[in-house]
């Protein structure tokens, strides 16, 4: 009982760890916007590209350049939460400027000679902005609001950091729009007070933390690059080559040379044959494959000139399969042929289905059950110059099959007849030779 309890606890722990790892692997791009404007000029900053998150270092560098010379008075409007989505939702950006909740803010930005807006500033901790400003201005922040500010006297010979906290909507009493509108009112008041005081200042509007965090799902940790879809396949086996005077004279390649004597198939292509007894001369080639398992395959080819086509053709006259003293012969002369200088290729050479190798009628009765089934078969017995490559492969399958030809003939014939008939019908016209537009129209008498 306790063992199973502890194992389930372990499983729970493992799940927590996994979830934690999962969540931590997701980088959440937390960002707050920052709006900065000044009553005098600010050093220019190139507006960041859309979606670009400005890093703290960039901000530090900019603030150094902005607050570098002389004492600065900085008004920091720090809203509890702020994200650029707030501007999108409540800023009247869809052509409804009058509904905007940031009217004073916009007016201030427009009125100031220069302003900087960073829509996405990297956010990691809520105290970063304050700490940064403290460091830059070398002064601690003074918490004010609209009332206290009007009574405050600002010493312009030293830097001042005035902090105004603005609430964010909690959704309990007022709507977000009202809260932001009120904040905007406070901003407007403060700015007008500052203007009345005649103090030169720089104002910043940002959030203590982002109001919306959209966790980014990081892609898998693998490098995202293009890779070849096709992996390098297994190496292709060499064709069987019979060499005569150093160069291949007969070549044979097959994906599999299946034979069946009693019903189960044996692939001879997996075994290594010896080529004793093979002959290769100009007009006859005989390839004899003797396997250690006792089978012997003989491919007999011949080539000669055929007068009608005036070219040399070679034929695979017969394929013989021998086991011990039983021999079966299959005639390939009729179907397996190619011009003598090319090789013959066929995807399927069988003796029982779409037969290219016809069993000879002289075969021993005991061999009637024997079957041959060669896959992806290519053979060449003549015309191998001195390379080890097959010549152009004349395939057993043509471009159009017989069925396609028959269909084409009948359908094209019927189409032609149809077009002819359509043409005739379309050129029938009503006779208008005797039309006389000025003459009396035809009258059909009602009575006989």
């Amino acid at each position: 009982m306790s063992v199973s309890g502890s194992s389930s606890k372990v499983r729970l722990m493992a799940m927590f760890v996994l979830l934690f790892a999962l969540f931590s692997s997701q980088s959440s791009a937390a960002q707050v916007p920052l709006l900065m404007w000044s009553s005098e000029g600010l050093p220019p900053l190139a507006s960041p590209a859309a979606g670009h998150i400005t890093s703290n270092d960039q901000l530090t560098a900019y603030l150094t350049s902005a607050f570098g010379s002389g004492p600065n008075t900085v008004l920091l409007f720090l809203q509890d939460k702020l994200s650029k989505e707030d501007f999108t939702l409540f800023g009247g950006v869809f052509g409804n400027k009058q509904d905007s909740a940031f009217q004073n803010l916009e007016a201030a930005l427009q009125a100031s000679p220069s302003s900087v807006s960073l829509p996405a500033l990297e956010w990691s901790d809520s105290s970063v902005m304050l700490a940064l400003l403290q460091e830059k201005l070398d002064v601690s922040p003074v918490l004010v609001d609209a009332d206290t500010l009007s009574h405050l006297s600002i010493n312009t010979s030293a830097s001042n950091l005035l902090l105004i906290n603005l609430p964010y909507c909690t959704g309990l009493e007022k709507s977000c729009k009202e809260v932001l509108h009120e904040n905007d009112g406070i901003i407007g008041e403060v700015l007008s007070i500052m203007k009345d005081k005649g103090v030169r200042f720089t104002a910043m509007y940002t959030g203590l933390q982002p109001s919306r965090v959209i966790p980014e799902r990081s892609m898998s940790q693998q490098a995202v690059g293009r890779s070849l879809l096709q992996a390098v396949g297994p190496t292709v086996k060499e064709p069987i080559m019979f060499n005569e005077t150093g160069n291949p004279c007969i070549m044979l390649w097959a994906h599999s040379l299946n034979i069946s004597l009693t019903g189960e198939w044996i692939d001879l292509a997996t075994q290594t044959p010896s080529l004793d007894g093979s002959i290769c001369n100009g007009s006859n080639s005989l390839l004899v494959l003797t396997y250690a398992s006792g089978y012997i395959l003989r491919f007999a080819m011949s080539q000669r000139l055929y007068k009608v086509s005036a070219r040399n053709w070679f034929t695979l006259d017969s394929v013989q399969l021998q086991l011990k003293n039983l021999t079966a012969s299959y005639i390939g002369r009729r179907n397996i042929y190619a011009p003598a200088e090319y090789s013959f290729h066929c995807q399927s050479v069988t003796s029982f289905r779409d037969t290219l190798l016809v069993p000879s009628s002289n075969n021993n009765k005991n061999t009637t059950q024997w079957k041959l089934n060669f896959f992806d078969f290519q053979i060449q017995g003549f015309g191998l110059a001195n390379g080890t490559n097959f010549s152009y492969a004349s395939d057993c399958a043509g471009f159009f099959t017989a069925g396609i030809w028959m269909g084409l003939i009948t359908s094209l014939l019927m189409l032609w007849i149809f077009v002819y008939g359509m043409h005739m019908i379309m050129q029938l016209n009503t006779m208008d030779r005797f039309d006389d537009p000025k003459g009396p129209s035809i009258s059909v008498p009602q009575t006989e």
Partner: protein
Amino acid sequence: MLLECMMNGHAILYTGVTVAFWTTILIVGTCYTIFDLGFRFDVAWFLTETSPFMWANLGIGLAISLSVVGAAWGIYITGSSIIGGGVKAPRIKTKNLVSIIFCEAVAIYGIIMAIVISNMAESFSGTTPETIGARNYQAGYSMFGAGLTVGFSNLFCGICVGIVGSGAALADAQNGNLFVKILIVEIFGSAIGLFGVIVAILQTSKVKMGD
């Protein structure tokens, strides 16, 4: 001038299709020649691999359809003339139906031959050229040839009789004595349809399809 030549939309279509067809043939033929693949163009393979049944049935179909086209064309020509002439000279109506009958005879030849030829089609059990056998090939080709023979003969016979009959009707409308003489011309015209039938019968006399 080019605009006037090509004004007819049909002409543009037909020229376009013809040009496309012959261009394809030319390009394919040229490529085959250049790449020494001329041996692939094998007429003997085509004639032995296509089924004799296709040829036989094409013959039967063409026998009846071409004959009917001839008859229809002839009747259309003659009929229009008889009806037109009959408006002013109603007496020609009955006599000139003979021309229509001559045209119709052509269609009857066609259907008789189609039935005769289709009775010769039997099934056979071979699938390869060797097992099909020469006799079945001969049967298929003979039936195709006979169908073509009777079809085209009747086609032109029908048109011929039709045009002559049309002339006969109009001449008859003008002058009633002319009709009998013109009928002789029509008889000669319809004899040629009969020639086609005779030759087709001779072609299929030796046909024996089957195993």
